[in-house]
């Protein structure tokens, strides 16, 4: 039996009169890629922000590997291995790729106060280089992040989250704004991430990518989860077609 990673029960977020998240139940089991699809304004990003802790929930509970995290801050959740990336690239634009990744690695190593630790410098460098290789930015370590191409910035965006060695990675439209010829590399890359002790919750609009990547798919419409199933079940569901695929 696969381990339960995330268990969400009756989650609610209201913005004034708008129910952005409407009593959502949600489960993720270990080493799965779970995709979240739905029309714009369905509340997908709101839901991810609630999971990551950027937005506090009005009602309901979130449990991560059995621990109730409903009231924890974003930083505390990141420490536990629940890490998000952003749809709108959120990197440290004026710092080099190396410094960007070093910030992240340093957070994982809890090294911000290791002032006199000579070994730390080497440990940091090795891990930064290894993450940079995975996101194909090893040749750009000393480039200022704002001088990277858009695609490279998206790679760094994921790299920052990855360097924390998350157990659950929340990817909010990782391929947003990429040109079609860049998408295949990203799809393969995300697929390669999945493995022991890493599950992924993915928001994506590119349906080809979603069907190629995901083990399970949830469909959100107007803050409600209207469907949950395997890719094949989603493809054949009349309800999903009516509500979202528009066929």
């Amino acid at each position, binding site marked *: 039996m696969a381990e339960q990673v995330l268990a969400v029960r009756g989650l609610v977020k209201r913005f004034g009169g708008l129910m952005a998240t409407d009593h959502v139940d949600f489960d993720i089991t270990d080493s799965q890629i779970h995709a979240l699809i739905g029309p714009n304004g369905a509340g997908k990003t709101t839901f991810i922000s609630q999971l990551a802790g950027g937005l506090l929930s009005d009602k309901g509970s979130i449990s991560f590997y059995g621990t109730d995290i409903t009231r924890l801050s974003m930083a505390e959740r990141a420490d536990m291995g629940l890490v998000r990336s952003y749809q709108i690239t959120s990197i*440290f*634009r004026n710092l080099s790729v190396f410094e960007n990744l070093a910030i992240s690695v340093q957070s994982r190593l809890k090294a911000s106060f290791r002032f006199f630790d000579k070994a730390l410098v080497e440990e940091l460098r090795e891990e930064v280089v290894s993450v940079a290789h995975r996101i194909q930015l090893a040749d750009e370590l000393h480039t200022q992040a704002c001088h990277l191409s858009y695609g490279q910035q998206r790679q760094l965006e994921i790299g920052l989250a990855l360097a924390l060695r998350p157990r659950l990675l929340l990817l909010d439209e990782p391929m947003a704004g990429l040109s079609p010829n860049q998408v295949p590399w990203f799809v393969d890359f995300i697929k390669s991430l999945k493995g022991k002790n890493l599950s992924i919750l993915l928001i994506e609009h590119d349906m080809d990518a979603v069907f190629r990547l995901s083990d399970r798919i949830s469909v959100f419409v107007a803050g409600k989860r209207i469907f949950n199933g395997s890719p094949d079940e989603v493809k054949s569901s009349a309800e999903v077609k009516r509500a979202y695929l528009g066929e």
Partner: protein
Amino acid sequence: MKSHSHIAWALLAVLLIAFPAMAQAFGGSFYVGFATRVLILALAATSLRLLVGELALVSFGHAAFFGTGAFVVAILSKELTAPVGLLPGTDSAWIAWPIAVMVSALLAVVIGMISLRTKGAYFIMITLAFAQMTFYLFESLKMYGGDEGINMAHRSRLGFGLDTGDNVTFYYVVLATVVLVNLLFRFLIRSPLGRVMKGIKENETRMQALGYRTYRYKLMVFAIAGAAAGLSGALLANQNSYASPSLFSWLQSGNLLIMVILGGSVNFWGGAVGAIVFCVLEEVLPHLTRFWQIAMGVLVILVVMRVPEGLTGLRWRVRVPQVGQRRSSSEVGNG
């Protein structure tokens, strides 16, 4: 390039060390006291620059810590010579100065705990409000001089045969203190903690998403800056043997901010350079015109409009061509 900067540092060190001898040789002993004051204010401005430059925290209440440091030293001295009896007094620098630093740091933690929950203009206004509260508090302390402030019988004693009452000796004490604090700041900025500061300045939300409790880090740096400002206040009270509530005034906070803006907040030395330029102008301009403050104002406006990175952001337009790869700055700059 490296050897050039070594030479520049060596020259600066010689200048700072030889300054009192040079001033006396030219019959201007007055300038030893002036240089001491410049160093003290440079320390205060450097501590404010740490907040503005490294964390983008524009504190308009830095005078609160500056004044607190001055008053702690002055109150302890008064308790020794003309006791009010609330505290045991002391005139030992080894006791009074660390207490001044700790009380200032503690005040910074209290003020920071509340102000750091706000951002931007709100942060500016709330730090200003707190500083004004300390101003009125100390102005109303009648047993400690009220609005007249406190006179110290003499400067804090250091022992080891050092007579701090002597202006030249005191100059060197201040110089050593300022150099030590600068080394400490430089160490912090280059440490892993400095990397966290850079990240918070660039993108605080992302820092939180990466597991950093940014509020705690900001509070810690705020306390460090407050402690250093308190130390400079303690030095200033010593230099004048006097602490005035005006040290707490918003004008003082404003002057420190102007120094940082003049010198530039991005560069490590921005605060110090700004303090030197500010103090020299404040000394020289009144000899030239009664309306010197207008001239100062024009200069600040010019710097803000023409060199937003401040005087330390100025670069030579034409670089001397060097043997090897480096050519003109325009080629390097647009790469």
